[in-house]
Structures are given as structure tokens and as C-alpha cells.
């Protein structure tokens, strides 16, 4: 990502919304706006200060808000989340950056046994409004532990909210909503889309972060996904249209809570649903969506809910990730497959 000078950013402020900016810059702007709005909002993470984070998402924030509010932490993820919990107990709104998805596991205990449970454990007496920013997903050509999609592990933990923005506009507003939530929120940042440019309307909030949104209307089949695969799904829908298939694309946006109503409504309308995510399908979050939609729309479905995702293997060496990750073709294959099922005695 090319670093933009502050002067240019300031200039942009004066420009009429919506402003085009890369997704990383939208998050940077959201963080800056929240830091400015509330003195109790602080950022903490590895290399987020002078460096601005390894993805430069916190670029220049330490210079603007000081090292006490944009804190370079020791190299200790459990410590980062544990410290955020203590800060939040005292009334702060800490925003932690975990450098890469694969490094969240040293903090897994603090996230699942502490952060998720403090409010419940104390019968509601103590709130812990911690936001965890987690750059996640693959397709960046990196080495092991830099391309993972651990959302199902956290979705299974009651007490956490998990959201996954897919566009700069959503990234800006959903990050702000996460920071303002009283509950702990994990924001899955689609790191391969950090450089994706799109309009950000700083005056018009995005829809509620905890809802799904229909991004493209269609009539034949629904394709639901979130985060980095949303642009892939939109592209797949575009290709399918040229082949005579009208695909409705739903951006799931929120993993927990899950807006299963919106997804099921779409699936009931099109009678078919394909769910895609980068994470392995086995035991994956797509299974949760499939089960819920099957229950809600059983009699309306002409085919079983199909899933497109990673394989039941550790994330492969990135030289092979193009074969592992769902792409347009894998989505098209699943979309087509959903049409071969017979319903009540014949091809539908």
C-alpha cells in the first residue's frame, strides 16, 4: 500500500462524500475518528506505532494521538488481549490488532475463556468492550500462519461478536460500530482486499454491522459469502449471467450474530443456495448457514445447500493456494451443481 501524506488525507476530508479510498485506509480513518471521538478509545498491538502496522492500517495514528493511545505492545498476543480485558474493565475501549490470523492462537485462551465470558460470569456487572482487529484469509502469497480463516472457532464461542466487512465503506462503518459495541467484537479484516479501492461515504452509515445484505439481486440461485470472497462472488455472478443464470449475491457480513433470516429469505426466493468461504468446509461456518437455511426454507429449496471452501488440510504452501482457495470457477461449479438435483421426480 502506498502511504498517503496526511495533507492529502486532510484535503480529502473537505471533499464531498463519498470519497474513494482503499479498504485499509477506510479502517485507518475509522480508527482515527474513534480515537478523536473518545479519549477512552486506545489502540494496542505489535508494530502499530511508528511502523503503522505491517499492513499500515494504523499509519500515522501514533504520531497524531501519541504513544499512550496508540500503543506498541510486547510481542505477546495473549498479553495484548489480556491487557485489553483489564483496560476495558476499567472503562476503556481498547482496539487490539493481531498482526496475522495465525498469531491469534496464543491469545485463544484469553479470547474464549475470558473475553467472551466476563460479562456473563459477572452476571452483567462487568462489560468488556474490546475490539479485536484480525487481518485474515489467504491469497497473499505468504508463508505458513499468514493466511488462515479461524472464524468458525470463534463463532462457536458464545459472548463474541464476529463481523467481516468486504468493502471500504463497510470496513469504515463496521469498524466504528465494533468499537462502539458494548460487547467484544472480532473484526475479520479481508487482508487481500486492503488495497481494494471503493467509495466511502463518511456521512451515511452502512447498514447495521450485524445484518446480512443482498448485494446483487437474482432469481435462480443465491450465493452467500463474506469478507475477501465477496468480490469473487460478484464476479462469478457476472460470469453466470452471461451463461443465463441469474445469481443473487448475499454478503453475510456478520458471523455472530448470524442474520439467517436474510439469507433464508433469499434462498427461499431463488430455491437454491451456495455458501462460500475460504475456511475449510468440514466443520466450517458454511455448515451452520446450511443447517439454518435448510430448517427455515426446507420446502422452498430445490437442491441441498452446497458449500465451497478450503479443504480439510492445514493451509497449504501458498504456491498451491490458487488450487485451495475458492475462485470464480469453483463457485460457478457449485452454482451449476445446484441445478442438477432432482426435485419431486425430475430435474428442476
Amino acid at each position, binding site marked *: 500500500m502506498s502511504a498517503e501524506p496526511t495533507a492529502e488525507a486532510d484535503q480529502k476530508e473537505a471533499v464531498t462524500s463519498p470519497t474513494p479510498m482503499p479498504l485499509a485506509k477506510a479502517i485507518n480513518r475509522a480508527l482515527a475518528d474513534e480515537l478523536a471521538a473518545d*479519549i*477512552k478509545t*486506545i489502540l494496542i498491538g505489535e508494530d502499530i506505532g511508528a511502523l503503522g502496522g505491517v499492513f499500515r492500517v494504523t499509519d500515522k495514528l501514533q504520531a497524531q494521538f501519541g504513544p*499512550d*493511545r496508540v500503543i506498541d*505492545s*510486547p510481542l*505477546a498476543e*495473549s*498479553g495484548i*488481549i*489480556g*491487557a*485489553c*480485558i*483489564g*483496560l*476495558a*474493565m*476499567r*472503562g*476503556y475501549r*481498547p482496539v487490539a490488532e493481531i498482526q496475522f490470523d495465525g498469531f491469534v492462537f*496464543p491469545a485463544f*485462551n*484469553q479470547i474464549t*475463556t*475470558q473475553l467472551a*465470558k*466476563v*460479562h*456473563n*460470569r*459477572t*452476571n*452483567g*456487572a*462487568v*462489560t468488556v468492550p474490546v475490539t479485536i482487529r484480525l487481518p485474515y484469509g489467504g491469497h497473499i502469497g505468504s508463508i505458513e500462519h499468514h493466511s488462515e480463516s479461524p472464524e468458525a472457532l470463534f463463532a462457536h464461542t*458464545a*459472548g463474541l*461478536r464476529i463481523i467481516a466487512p468486504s468493502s471500504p465503506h463497510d470496513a469504515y462503518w463496521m469498524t466504528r460500530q465494533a468499537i462502539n*459495541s*458494548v*460487547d467484544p467484537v472480532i473484526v475479520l479484516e479481508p487482508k487481500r482486499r486492503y488495497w481494494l479501492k471503493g467509495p466511502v461515504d463518511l456521512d451515511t452509515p452502512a447498514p447495521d454491522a*450485524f445484518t446480512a445484505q443482498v448485494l446483487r439481486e437474482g432469481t435462480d440461485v443465491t450465493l452467500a459469502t463474506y469478507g475477501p470472497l465477496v468480490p469473487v462472488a460478484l464476479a462469478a455472478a457476472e460470469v453466470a449471467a452471461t451463461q443465463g443464470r441469474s445469481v443473487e449475491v448475499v454478503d453475510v457480513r456478520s458471523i*455472530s*450474530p*448470524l*442474520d*439467517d*433470516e436474510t439469507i433464508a429469505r433469499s434462498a427461499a426466493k431463488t430455491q437454491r443456495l451456495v455458501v462460500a468461504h475460504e475456511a475449510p468446509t468440514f466443520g466450517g461456518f458454511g455448515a451452520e448457514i446450511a443447517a439454518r437455511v435448510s430448517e427455515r426454507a426446507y420446502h422452498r429449496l430445490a437442491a441441498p445447500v452446497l458449500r465451497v471452501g478450503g479443504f480439510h488440510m492445514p493451509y497449504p504452501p501458498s504456491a498451491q493456494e490458487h488450487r485451495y482457495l475458492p475462485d470464480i470457477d469453483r463457485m460457478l461449479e457449485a452454482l451449476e451443481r445446484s441445478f442438477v438435483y432432482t426435485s419431486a421426480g425430475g430435474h428442476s
Partner: protein
Amino acid sequence: MSDIRLADPTPVQLLAEDGTLTEHPVFSQYIEALDDEVLRELYRHMVLERRFDAEATSLQRQGMLALWVPALGQEAAQIGAIAALEQTDRVFPTYREHAMALYRGITPEELMGTFRATRHTGWDPHAFNFNAYSVVLASQVMHAAGWAMGIKQDVATGTLGEGRPDDELVLACLGDGATSQGDAHESMVFASSYELPMLYFIQNNHWAISVPQETQSRVPLAHRAAGYGFEGMRVDGNDVLATFAVTRYMAEQIRAGSGPKLVEAVTYRIGAHTTADDPTKYRTSEELDAWKSRDPIARYRTWLESRSIIDAAYTEQVDQEAAELAKQLRIAVRSMESVQLERVFDTVYAEPHRQVETEKAWLKDYEAGFAEEEEGADT
């Protein structure tokens, strides 16, 4: 970086096992400054805790508690430390800090919800500046570091909350076992790097369930502090006066801006790890007897009596109060009502969550179905 000396392996002791007080060039002044009423209170709280502990153990044996975690033998360590602090100092306990909890004013009923398993935590941590018990050990000392970061940041930005002093410190409690957890290490790194106002208080009771302290550390635990760049000290945790004096000495320096400190209170878990434990399988009766002879209450009572600070009438009065506390505990445990599952649903999140609400509504309908069936059967 300053040069930190290793802690003296010989624990600081003021009150010998036979109840005689020795002069110490640094620590005696902290005891001399106390009036008799405070000295009596230390005794009273230790006796109350011991009776409370015995009653809880017995209630567990009667099937009234899911589990009990005895603190028998650790009364001086806990009371000495908590009494040396201010009510506004935040405590991050393990699950064995019953004496500290009672000292802070948490009631038997509030304390025992955890152990009767009617609720995870029965008290409001903010009301007592005393956090929920931590069961996943050492996680709490990382929270303590975060809280301490908040203290520093509040002071720096002039945003201290109402009633919060600018020299607050955090008591981060650990046992010998928990010092081996990664979070203990990470917490001490944070505390040192950010010069946090924290006092690590390790009760080395010699046994982490069945594993001896030698398996956790080959050196005195207090030595670890030097590795992080702050001072550690060993104190006789069965000597309430020494524990009080050392804690207050450390607290004074922390309040003056020294950064973190560590106290290792050398004590012994006379009881079992929990009521589900059988210590005869891993430790000898000789060892147990040796520690029983170093009883924290007996030696302190001997000294108080020798100075005529307490008399038979006073000890009788405290014993009666302890018996009354035990009675309150029995009543509380018997009448304790569980938090309802509806409330558990309602506190998973602070703000509405679609799936939680759906499941709560489903359970209500499901259970209402049984009620209707029962009504149908009656008519």
C-alpha cells in the same frame, strides 16, 4: 536499566514461630505505626476466615457445595497483604483468596455462589474493587496489567473516575503453580515495560495440587522479578506482621512511581487443594506436621496476648463472631437460589443477539408445553 538484586532467599520474618517479635531495620516501623485496634483486626479476620473455611469444607462434605477450595493455613498471607492496601486498590484474585474477599466485605452468600455453582460470580467486582475469581490460572494477572495500564492512562489524561485515587495500585494474585503459566510471564513483561503500578503477590503454598513447587521453579519465585527488571522479596507468609509490613513497604514505593514489585509469601496449604483432592497420595504427614507447627494464627495470638493487646474476653468474642459467621454461611448456602437460565441467556451479550434471543424464546415455548401438559393432566 537499573541493576536489580536477587531477593534474599531467607524470607523476611518479624514474628517467630514461638510468638516472639524481632526487630528489623526496615520493616518494624510499619508494625510500630499500627494501633492496637488494627492489630486486633488482623487477628479477628484470620480467625473468621479459618472458621469460615472449616464450615465450607464441612458443607461440601454434606453435599451442599459443588466444590470447596480451602485456604486453611494461608490466613496470614492473605490478611497481611489485603490489610496493608487501600480499599480503592484493585485486587485480581485466583480462586483461593477467600480471606481477602471476606476482608473486603464480600458476604458469605456472595462468595459461595461460585462454590454452590448457583452462579459463576456472586458479587459485583466494581463494588468491592475485587475481581471475579479466576479459574483459568494466570489469566487474571494479565487483566491486572491492563487495569494498571488504565490507571496510568487515567492519571496522564486527567480522566480518573469518581472516587479513584491517582496512586491506586493493583494486587495481582498468583500461586506457585500459576507462575509457570505463560500469562504470568507476559503480565510481568507488560508490567515492567510500561512501569505499571502493580504488586504481584505470590502465595507459594508449596503444592499445585500434587506437584511440588520444585517442579515450577528451581529458584525462589521472588528471583523471577529480577529477570524482568523489578524488585522481588520473600516473606514468611505465615507471619501476618511481616506480610503486612513487606506489602506496605512495596505498596509505598509503587505509589511513589517505582513500577511493579513482587512479593513471594512462603506459606503452606494445610488443607487439600480442593475437596476433590487427596493430599495423602503425594505428601508426607511429617511435612504437614512441620507446617502445622508454624501456624499463623497461634503465633500471632501468643504475641498479642504477651503484649496484652488481646485478652480472653476478646478471643472469646471473636470465636463467637466466627461461630455466627459459620451459621450465616450455613443459612446462606441452604437458601441460595440459582441464577435462572433466562438470566444466563440475557448476560451472554450486553446488547441483543439474534441467536441468543431465538434460543431463549424457544426454551420458553418448549417448557411452556410441559406446563400445559401438566395442566391437561390435572383437569
